[in-house]
C-alpha cells in the first residue's frame, strides 16, 4: 500500500516525529520512502508540517500537496489543508483543538480528542502518537507490528523508557 500523507499541527506537537515513525514503516517494508518537513524561521510556535511518501517505485516529488491522508492537530492547519485532501481521502483530526466544520462529503473524517485523551491518561505530549494510532486504524497503511517496530527504531537508545508510554498511546489511539 502506498502512503501519501501530510501531518500538520503547531510546532512542538510532535508532528515531525509522528511523520518520521510512518516513514520508518516504509523502510521496514523495504519500500521507497521520503519524509520532508516544512521548515520556517520561527523557532517555536507557528505551524509545522511534514510530507511522507511510501511507494514501490522511486518517489518523484516528495512534497505532498494533495494528501490521500491528512493528520491534523491545529485549526490553522485544518483550514489550510482541508480542501487539498484528495477525494476519497481520509482526515484524522484532534477534536480537542479543532471543531471540524468542513462541508466536504467526499472524504472520511475521523475526529479523536487526542490532546484531551493524552492529558487524561498521563500521556502528556503524546497526543501525536494517539493520533497516529487512530490514523493507522482509519487507513491501515501498515500492520500494527510494523508500526510498533518503527516506533522502537525512532526512539533513541537512551530514551527507551519512553517506549512504553508511546506504545500505550498508540494502542489507545487505535482503540478509540
Amino acid at each position, binding site marked *: 500500500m502506498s502512503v501519501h500523507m501530510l501531518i500538520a499541527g503547531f510546532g512542538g506537537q510532535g508532528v515531525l516525529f509522528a511523520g518520521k515513525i510512518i516513514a520508518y514503516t516504509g523502510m521496514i517494508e523495504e519500500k521507497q520512502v521520503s519524509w520532508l518537513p516544512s*521548515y520556517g524561521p520561527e523557532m517555536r510556535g507557528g505551524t509545522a508540517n511534514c510530507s511522507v511518501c511510501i511507494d514501490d517505485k522511486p518517489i518523484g516529488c516528495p512534497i505532498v500537496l494533495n494528501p490521500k491522508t491528512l493528520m491534523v492537530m491545529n485549526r490553522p492547519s485544518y483550514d489550510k489543508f482541508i480542501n487539498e485532501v484528495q477525494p476519497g481521502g481520509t482526515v484524522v483530526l484532534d477534536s480537542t483543538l479543532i471543531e471540524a466544520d468542513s462541508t466536504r462529503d467526499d472524504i472520511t473524517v475521523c475526529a479523536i480528542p487526542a490532546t484531551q485523551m493524552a492529558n487524561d491518561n498521563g500521556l502528556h505530549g503524546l497526543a501525536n502518537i494517539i493520533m497516529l494510532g487512530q490514523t493507522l486504524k482509519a487507513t491501515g497503511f501498515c500492520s500494527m507490528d510494523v508500526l510498533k517496530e518503527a516506533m522502537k527504531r525512532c526512539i533513541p537508545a537512551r530514551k527507551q523508557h519512553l517506549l512504553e508510554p508511546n506504545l500505550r498511546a498508540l494502542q489507545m489511539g487505535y482503540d478509540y
Partner: protein
Amino acid sequence: MAEKYLMKGNEAIAEAAIRNGCIHFFGYPITPQTEVSAYMSKVLPKIGGTFLQAESEIAAINMVLGAASCGVRAMTSSSSPGISLKSEGVSYIAGSDLPCVILNVMRGGPGLGGIQPSQADYWQATKALGHGDFQLLVFAPATVQEIVNLIGTAFDLAEKYRMPALILADGMLGQMMEPVEFPETVSKPAEKPYATTGTQGKRKPNITNSLYLKPDELERTVRERFARYDVIKQNEVRCEEYLTDDADIILVAYGATARVVRSAVEDARACGIKAGLIRPITLWPFPEEAIRKAAARVDHMITVEMSMGQMVEDVRLYANGQCDVHFFGRTGGIVPTPAEVLEQIKKYAGGAE
C-alpha cells in the same frame, strides 16, 4: 547488504564525507544546511578530526584553503548568500590548484531571499563562483542516496584534477529524509607531494600560490588548468537519461526538480505522450553530447528549473538551433508541481492524448 538508514540529506552528506576520509570541516551556520555542521560537530571531535565553526563563510573557505594546502581532505558547506561570500576564496583555491569539496544547499534569492528550495545559483556554480577564468566540478544529486554516492567521487576527482568540487543541492534535498546505504568501499585521500606540510629539511619548500605578476606566466598556468578541464570534459560527464530513447519531447532538469519532472514524464506517458528526461548529474562538465543528440532528434525540449531560467541557456547553447528549447520555472522557493510540468509537456507535445 549494507544497513539502511533514514537520514536527512544534510546528515547523509556529513556522514558520507567522513566515511570518505574528510575529517576536517569548517562551516558557518545557515538555513537550510545547519544539520551538516551539527552532525560534524557531533562526530569529528570523537575521531580526532576538526570541526570548526568559523567566524564567517569567508573565514571558513580560507580555512579550507589552508587545510587543503596541507594535504588533508577539507570541506565547507553553506547556502546561497554564504556561498556568495566564498567567491574570492573559491577563486583562490582554484587558482592555487587545490582540491576541496564545497556544498551549496541553495535557497531562494537574491539577497536574503527566503529559506525554501531554489536552483537560482546555477550560473554562479557553473560559470562564476568568483573572478577570473576557472571552473569547478559541479555535482547535482537528486536523491539522498545519490548525495552519498557522489561525495567520494567529488573528493577523488577534486584531487585527481587538483580543483575544487561543488555539490549543488537545494533546501528540499538537504531537509528531506530518505533511506540510504553507505557503500562499503570508500575513497581515500590521494598522496599530495605538493602539500605544505613542512620541508623536514629534505626538500625544497612547497609553495601554494595564485599570484603571477608576469602575464605570460599567469597565462601559462591558466592554460595548463584549462588543458585539464578539457580532459575532464572528455571523461567525467555524468548524466542520466530516462525514457529518452523513443521520446518525442525531452525535458531537461537536475537535482530535486528532476524528481518532479520524472513524475511528470511518467504522467505524460500515461497520457500517451512520449516524453523523456535528461538529468545532468554533473553540471560542469555539462552533458553537451546528450543535449546535442537529443536536440537532433526532437522538435521540442523543455528545461525545468527552480529559477528564472539559467541552465536553459546551456541547453540552448548545445542544442544550437537544432530544436526549440522552452523553459518552465518557478522561483523564490516554490517547487514546481508535476501537474504544472505536465501542462507544459502537453503544450509543446502537440495535443497528444
